[in-house]
């Protein structure tokens, strides 16, 4: 029997995916507060979709699709600029690693290299390894075939390796 989406299960979905959706926005917008606002809007819009009587095939995928649409609406700025702004403001990799200096240095190296990647590779690498989306989920969101996405991720990582080796 398929699980029903009711209040309880929706809140469970929130508990499961809130951090991931927050991360999705955090590395794309320049402000923690904006990332939180957009995250909340994502869940509200998703709930509204259900209130309107529509069906959701897969809640996780749907949340990411809503997030992606919100991101497009919110800003036409490219990821490069957001990552550059993050660098300028002082990158905050995460609550549990803030105090680790080597992580801050690594994070800056990672951002530098990510900024240098081709746009089409950068986006899928972020979605795969920061947002934790599968190639299949990414493919639906970027409207490409899944294998194309897998290959882009692979080539993006190859480029990153080459750039990191060049920079060291």
């Amino acid at each position, binding site marked *: 029997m398929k699980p029903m989406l009711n209040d309880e299960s929706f809140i469970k979905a*929130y508990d499961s995916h809130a951090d991931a959706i927050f991360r999705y926005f955090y590395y794309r917008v320049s402000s923690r507060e904006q990332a939180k606002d957009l995250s909340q809007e994502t869940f509200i819009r998703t709930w509204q979709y259900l209130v309107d009587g529509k069906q959701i095939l897969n809640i996780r995928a749907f949340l990411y699709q809503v997030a992606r649409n919100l991101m497009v609406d919110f800003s036409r700025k490219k990821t490069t600029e957001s990552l550059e702004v993050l660098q300028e403001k002082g990158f905050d*990799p995460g609550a*549990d690693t803030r105090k680790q200096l080597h992580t801050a240095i690594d994070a800056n190296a990672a951002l530098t290299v990510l900024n240098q990647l081709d746009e089409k590779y950068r986006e899928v690498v972020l979605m795969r390894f920061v947002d934790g989306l599968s190639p299949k989920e990414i493919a639906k969101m970027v409207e490409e075939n899944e294998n194309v996405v897998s290959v882009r991720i692979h080539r993006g990582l190859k480029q990153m390796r080459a750039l990191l080796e060049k920079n060291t």
Partner: protein
Amino acid sequence: MSRSIRKFIKNIFRAQLTDEEHLTMRGALQIFMREHPLQSPVHDTEKTSGFSGFLLLVRRPLFVMVALVLMVLVGTSTVTYAAESALPGDLLYPIKVNVNESLRAAVAISPKAKAEWNITRVERRLQEAETLIDEGKLDTDNSLALTERFGDHSDELRTAIENFQSNDDIAAASQIAADFQATLNAHNKIIARLHHDSDDESILNLTDSLEAQSETGDDVESTIVAHVAAQSDENAELSVSNKRQVAKDKLQEVQAHFKRAQPGLDAITSAQVGAELEQASSLVLQGDSSSGTPSLSDSFTSFQKAHRAAQEAQLLIKSGTQLKKRVRTTDKIKRVENANSSIRIDAKTEQKSTSTDQEKRNTNEIKLKIDTRNDSKIDL
């Protein structure tokens, strides 16, 4: 190196909401939900799998007409047999992948049997790619089409492995994961032998896909090892013990197979197989090593890699004997006339095998003539 890059990125980008932020947002969301209640319970539906490939088939009218005509007038078994040697771009190829393979998937009853069939499907796609490379017919279109299908089978495999893990069936999860990785690695080596032009776009699509899937497979194997590490000591010991036995049995089996098959293999294949078997042996020793007292998860990892290496060796042996044969299938569509008058399709399958001493030629001709004009005379 690719694994460390992925870990590197994952470890750097780990921002999350604080507990307070999480609860605040949750509270606001709950208020909104109370103010905008659902009208009636909504089902979280998921697409059912099963015969979706077959359903896709029946939505293609022209193809359905041809396939149904063939099957009804000629006999399903003849058409499905002829389809087995079809390659991407051939008329019967959709029957091979959407009908034959769907039917065989339906026959596989247990989840493990279904997963093993999916590995076979991955292999079939890769063998088709290798045949196309051999015949100089691999192009960007068919390489993308092949890798798309291969990606679908790989996805199903990953889902199956996740399900096995959810059910705590580590034995099945690890076996399927090892067999899958071995298939990818073995065929990557074979393709490298068949084609040396690394700039060819169609080959790059294929090899990049294989490597991408292999990297994802590494992640999957890591989650299996993590699962073992999280088990109770008793269950973890059982998982390791089972894995050890599977790895040793596999190694013995393939060593015996290699001994029999080696005279018929070329030098490169022989060297590759030897290297994999040597690696498998040393990994088994490593897993068993009492010096340094490896953790259970380290031992499991060693046995898993040993299993994978032995399986890869077996696949290389199998392909080594087939590399000596060239299978050529030529489908000739003579004429498709007016659909109301007649459809005549000639299919000719030619099989040629070569040996090092002499060339043997076996020709099987299957001629299908379907004349729907007058009295539906069929000559077989």
